[in-house]
């Protein structure tokens, strides 16, 4: 693995540019929706686009640890930004659903959350990510202490699983995309269960 250049293995760039960069897809989607470039049902297209970006960011966040263990690429310094961005995309996705899709019809929203398995599971995913976003500051990490903080942040595993299941449950029939996303997430979660092939990765599992 020594063949990889250092800027890739141990990048020294700060993580803050990720925040403005990470919001570009959301802004782009919104601009396209407002200017009528997202097809016949722009609210639905925006909702779906944000959901898909949320899932991609969750996958990216889950890939950091295996990347280090397998390829010696250490991007841990960017993981918090990626995780927070994933949370913001889920939040925007939820807001789009409530405001643009359901028009703040609370009876319909409540019925959806209670009765539609894909919405129930999506909501569960959101609620699991919420404490992780709230404890993402340095002060909170210090307050909780490293071990407890790490234990709490394992909630990202069931959250990712919920996101994948949510997508599989909402589609009619069996299109390929949700199956691919689910397969990647299951593989990344399974990686945490199998101790083989991880060079020195046992000490810190996250």
């Amino acid at each position, binding site marked *: 693995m020594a063949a990889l250049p250092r800027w890739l293995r141990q990048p020294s760039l700060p993580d803050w540019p990720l925040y403005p960069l990470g919001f570009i897809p959301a802004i782009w989607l919104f601009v396209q*929706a407002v200017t009528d470039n997202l097809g016949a049902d722009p609210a639905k297209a925006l909702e779906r686009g944000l959901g898909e970006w949320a899932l991609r960011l969750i996958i990216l966040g889950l890939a950091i640890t295996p990347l280090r263990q397998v390829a010696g690429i250490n991007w841990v310094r960017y993981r918090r930004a990626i995780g927070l961005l994933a949370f913001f995309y889920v939040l925007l996705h939820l807001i789009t659903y409530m405001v643009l899709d359901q028009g703040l019809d609370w009876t319909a929203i409540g019925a959806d959350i209670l009765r539609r398995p894909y919405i129930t599971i999506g909501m569960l995913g959101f609620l699991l990510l919420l404490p992780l976003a709230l404890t993402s500051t340095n002060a909170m990490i210090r307050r909780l202490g490293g071990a407890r903080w790490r234990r709490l942040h394992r909630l990202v595993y069931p959250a990712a699983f919920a996101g994948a299941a949510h997508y599989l449950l909402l589609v009619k*029939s069996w*299109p390929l995309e949700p199956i691919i996303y689910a397969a990647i997430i299951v593989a990344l979660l399974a990686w945490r269960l199998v101790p083989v092939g991880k060079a020195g990765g046992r000490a810190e599992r996250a």
Partner: protein
Amino acid sequence: MLIRRGPDIKASEITPKEIYLSRRHLLGGMAGAGLIAGLGGKADAAPLTAGKSAFSTDEAPTSLKDITSYNNFYEFGTDKSEPARNAHRLTTSPWTVKVDGMVAKPTTFALEDLLKPAKLEERIYRMRCVEGWSMVIPWVGFPLADLLARVEPLGSAKYVAFETALRPEEMTGVGGFFKVLDWPYREGLRLDEALHPLTLLAVGLYGETLPNQNGAPLRLVVPWKYGFKGIKSIVRITLTDKEPQTSWNMQAPQEYGFYSNVNPDVDHPRWSQATERRIGEGGLFAKRRPTLPFNGYADQVAGLYAGMDLRKFY
């Protein structure tokens, strides 16, 4: 039977072509006609002469752009933008339709012969998709009952089964490891539903022949049922005495029944059917509107289901 009077002029006459081609403005400097031609199927669209119909609604028709770029036609991909991109591969001429089963005169029609005696009408119908959105579409077609009369159904016939063409070499969505549906696409109606005057065999929309993504050259339109009952690109119509298998019912029987009448009181297990979003109405901030029983055609069709428990026969 109560029939509401529709407008006296065709939608394609009220609305200048440039405007209905892009009711909502096309951006990026693309000319409406050029974009539509690029979407497939429209390049060789031919004008149709059609009379008016008292069955037409006076609601504003959805733009041609939305009707021809937002389609569920899984043979050409599961994303609603894919049929517009892929359906041009479908060869629609020559085309034959086999009408068989419990009829006195089973016939395989060349499309031209099937259409020769047909009196085409413009029917502006509401279309409600099972996914919770709706459109208003100015179809051109003729009553299915007229075709059935020509083949003379036997007294034993109780149902009509329909089948879409299956052409793996032209259809981009029917291959692959995970079969989206058990092809060919199948649909069915009870004979009295099939003979109802609202039930249409459509050959065009907006005054021209059907674009491929909308089911060229011949498709079914049953406006009081969810859109998926409107089987596209029909190659076979069979009269039978048994309830026909239908594709979505085969795929998920607890979600899609044989009848699939639009019903705001019977939710799809995964989403509510109480409201719908009218495509093209209000853009990003479009409000949902309440869904009507039988999609607003209850006066005409509710009698077909007298005494039936519509929760059980969904």
